[in-house]
């Protein structure tokens, strides 16, 4: 029985990288959005520039589930290289749309799906002579076919074409012509619509459609960043690109037209983090954007910034490691290498945004935290958030918000005789005062070093002042617990002894999974961790529940390790739920893993051995 669904299905496009399909596919997603139906698109791309398989998945979801769902209802199979895999990915009862120019034997299909063939190549060859045109218009033609198959409002697509070619109006009519070539073919030759339909709705609201990297870059602009030093690496390069674009618009002196920012593509990641530290030391707000391999290279400098207490912001757009790993696949796999980055006793502040709106918010907050705590702050994004368009609540900014520049002693204070010791804990919160270089001719200067020193920044190899300083750094880390974004707790309507901890890009899948789990009569309380070090509500949540599932996207249960390490909890009570094949975690996966575990608990009550 063919699947029958309205505004709730998954369309997946299988294409060849570099064939120009990306913009047509994105136009399809935007058209659905324009019809008032939320979409969650995801790009699954290879580490290559042209010729390898690439997929674009559009989850159409009036209910607003923005995580990956798993499974495919309609496969638009445009890449012969991946035919078998694409065919197999279709859910029973689903649909396959393919280019039928070359007839395929029945053995090439499945009999539990509906097969829709359109001779796309033949249509293109008849219509166009230029090979590049044949390629590009083929993409628009299949979008035209989809408008008929799914009963879409074709006017919306026409309008999007008009917007896409603003300034190149000559290109509008041929694209609209191609769109209708496909649509008319389908209307005349195929049964339209199929069981999957789109209906106008009003479910998008005021949400915006934005990539996490772009939102984070905008957060950096609003957060006051004027210096970006970086080195290209997927999936973080688009953050630096976006910062460049945002700054060109927002950070140019209106009178002199001069740029009020510096963006430096450095020779490597070591240089990038060094430049950030140099800029941060003198009071600028500076950041770098990188991914796992870059984090590995930056380790020594990060230790310096920790020990010498220099503000810095590091965006880690995580991808699947180790080493070069799967550079175009997503994971949450750098928690440990960031939390304890560098040799010796070090600990760092990490922020875990769940989506572009939080990427914006936490990005801006990171610069305040870096100045307040005088230490590196990591914003832990990942490829799934960073490089996909996500429907997100509008980015909010209060124009009255003042920057928190932290404890900076001024020339006037020094002049008035206030005591200055660069590493003196005057307030008991572990945070000392600093001065910007050049503050006062005779007072307040200090020497910055990565070697041990006393409270007045004087070199020392004595044990006691070293220990005093290291203890103070711990006090500062304690202080951070109340400054970073708090965890968010959502309790089940029914009391339960079981809980779930999750963070970052797992969020949308979890929001959906929780309904699936609860529908099974298994109530669970949820805690979304938004930062490290952990606020006191994390240990309380652990204390309130017998077992807590820790859901994450890495092999080694890195968040669970951080919790065990920092909260002194019995590891038996933390059940790892791990997804790490490089695809984004799905609600189906979470519900299944947790559901199975809860069933087991029901059958054989486990005893906690203490």
């Amino acid at each position, binding site marked *: 029985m063919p699947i029958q669904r309205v505004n709730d299905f998954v369309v997946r496009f299988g294409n060849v990288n570099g064939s120009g399909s990306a913009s047509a596919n994105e136009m399809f997603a935007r058209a659905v959005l324009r019809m008032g139906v939320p979409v969650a698109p995801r790009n699954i791309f290879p580490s290559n520039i042209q*010729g390898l398989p690439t997929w674009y998945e559009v989850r159409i979801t009036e209910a607003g589930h923005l995580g990956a769902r798993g499974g495919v209802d309609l496969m638009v199979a445009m890449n012969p290289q991946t035919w078998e895999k694409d065919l197999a990915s279709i859910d029973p009862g689903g649909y396959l749309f393919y280019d039928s120019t070359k007839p395929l034997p029945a053995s090439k299909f499945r009999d539990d799906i509906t097969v829709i063939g359109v001779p796309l190549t033949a249509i293109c060859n008849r219509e166009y002579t230029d090979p590049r045109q044949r390629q590009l218009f083929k993409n628009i033609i299949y979008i035209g076919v989809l408008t008929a198959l799914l009963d879409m409002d074709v006017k919306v697509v026409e309008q999007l074409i008009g917007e896409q070619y603003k300034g190149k109006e000559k290109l509008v009519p041929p694209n609209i012509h191609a769109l209708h070539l496909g649509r008319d073919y389908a209307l005349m030759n195929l049964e339209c619509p199929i069981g999957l339909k789109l209906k106008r709705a009003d479910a998008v609201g005021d949400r915006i459609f934005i990539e996490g990297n772009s939102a984070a870059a905008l957060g950096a602009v609003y957060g006051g960043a004027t210096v970006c030093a970086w080195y*290209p690496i997927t999936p973080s390069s688009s953050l630096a*690109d976006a910062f460049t674009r945002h700054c060109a618009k927002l950070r140019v002196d209106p009178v002199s037209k001069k740029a009020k920012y510096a963006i430096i593509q450095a020779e490597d990641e070591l240089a990038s983090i060094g430049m950030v530290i140099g800029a941060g030391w003198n009071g600028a707000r500076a950041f770098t954007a990188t991914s796992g*391999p870059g984090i590995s290279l930056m380790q020594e400098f990060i230790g310096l910034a920790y020990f010498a207490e220099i503000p810095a912001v590091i965006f880690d757009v995580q991808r699947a490691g180790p080493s070069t790993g799967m550079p175009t696949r997503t994971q949450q796999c750098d928690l440990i290498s960031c939390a304890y980055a560098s040799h010796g006793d070090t600990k760092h502040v990490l922020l875990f945004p769940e989506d572009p709106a939080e990427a914006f918010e936490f990005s801006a907050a990171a610069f305040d935290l870096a100045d307040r705590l005088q230490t590196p702050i990591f914003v832990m994004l990942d490829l799934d958030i960073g490089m996909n368009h996500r429907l997100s609540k509008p980015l909010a900014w209060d124009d009255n918000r003042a920057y928190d520049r932290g404890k900076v002693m001024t020339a006037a204070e020094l002049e008035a005789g206030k005591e200055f010791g660069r590493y003196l804990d005057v307030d008991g919160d572990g945070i000392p005062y600093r001065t910007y270089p050049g503050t006062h001719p005779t007072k307040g200067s200090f020497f910055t070093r990565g070697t041990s020193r006393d409270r007045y920044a004087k070199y020392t190899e004595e044990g006691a002042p070293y220990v005093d300083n290291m203890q103070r750094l711990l006090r500062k880390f304690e202080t951070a617990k109340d400054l970073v974004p708090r965890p968010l707790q959502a309790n089940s309507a029914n009391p339960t002894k079981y809980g779930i901890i999750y963070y970052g890009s797992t969020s949308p899948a979890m929001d959906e999974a929780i309904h699936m789990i609860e529908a099974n009569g298994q109530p669970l309380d949820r805690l979304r961790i938004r930062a490290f070090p952990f606020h006191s509500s994390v240990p309380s949540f652990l204390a309130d529940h017998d077992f807590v599932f820790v859901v994450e996207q890495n092999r080694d249960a890195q968040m669970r390790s951080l919790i065990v390490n920092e909260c002194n909890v019995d590891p038996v009570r933390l059940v790892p739920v791990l997804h790490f094949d490089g695809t984004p975690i799905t609600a189906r996966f979470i519900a299944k893993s947790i559901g199975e575990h809860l069933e087991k608990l029901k059958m054989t009550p486990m005893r906690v051995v203490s």
Partner: protein
Amino acid sequence: MSVSLASEAHCVKALAAKDFSSGAHPIWCPGCGDYGVLAALERALAAYGRPSHEVVLVSGIGCSSRLPAYTNCYGFHGVHGRALAVATGLKLTRPDLEVITVGGDGDGYSIGGNHFIHACRRNVDMLYLVMDNRVYGMTKGQPSPTTEPDWDSDIAPGGIGLRPLNPLALAIVAGANFVARGFAGDPQGLADLIVEGIAWPGFAFIEVLSPCVMFRPEQGEWKKMVRPAAMPAAPDRAAATAQVLAEDGFNLGVLYRGDRAPVSVPVPTNASMSEIERQFEIGA
């Protein structure tokens, strides 16, 4: 059986370029210059005559650094920018192997810049071949150290405005003894340079102009601009440096030959595990 016997056995039959191909289909864009470099390298290895299992290709990360996977030599595709370090360790412990390092301009001159300088001055016997397309291909078109100052890109609209690095001058100044320029569109000329570079005792550096059709389509013009160098390789380091600083970057051929002694390591007669382990022994 000893290695030398094995190679004699192979040498009985002349090697062909295809004997060095892994058969894997390269995932470079159609028209990428790196195809020409691969063809030239296979041709050169066949002409040089050592069987593929006695050759090691070491690379970093980038489109160009994928090249070793398309040959059936021993390959080492490591981390971005560090290929020369790996190759040095390899050659010093297995001098019997033919070591060739390949990569891109980003890999070799930017993140790997300091290793490049020190490999030139260390002068360990190996060939280093850089496929220079004056752009970061793999990460989608950012400027590299050899990019022209006015080349327009998303990240640097209007150009980066920085003086490009001259890798040949740098190599000569840093102490390299064999410095050449080849072109991906001239596989035979490049193959000849590679054979000479492999045979050269010590560190040999070949800068290969290898167009990136995707992000630098204008490099299609290079084929009209290159020419065999009219000038002979300059006689001394200072003159050679001045010469490569003054030319336009399109002269092909060997531009400098020096005479510093290479690092020489005794070649073991036999590459068996027991021979390697004999070196672990502690002798008085």
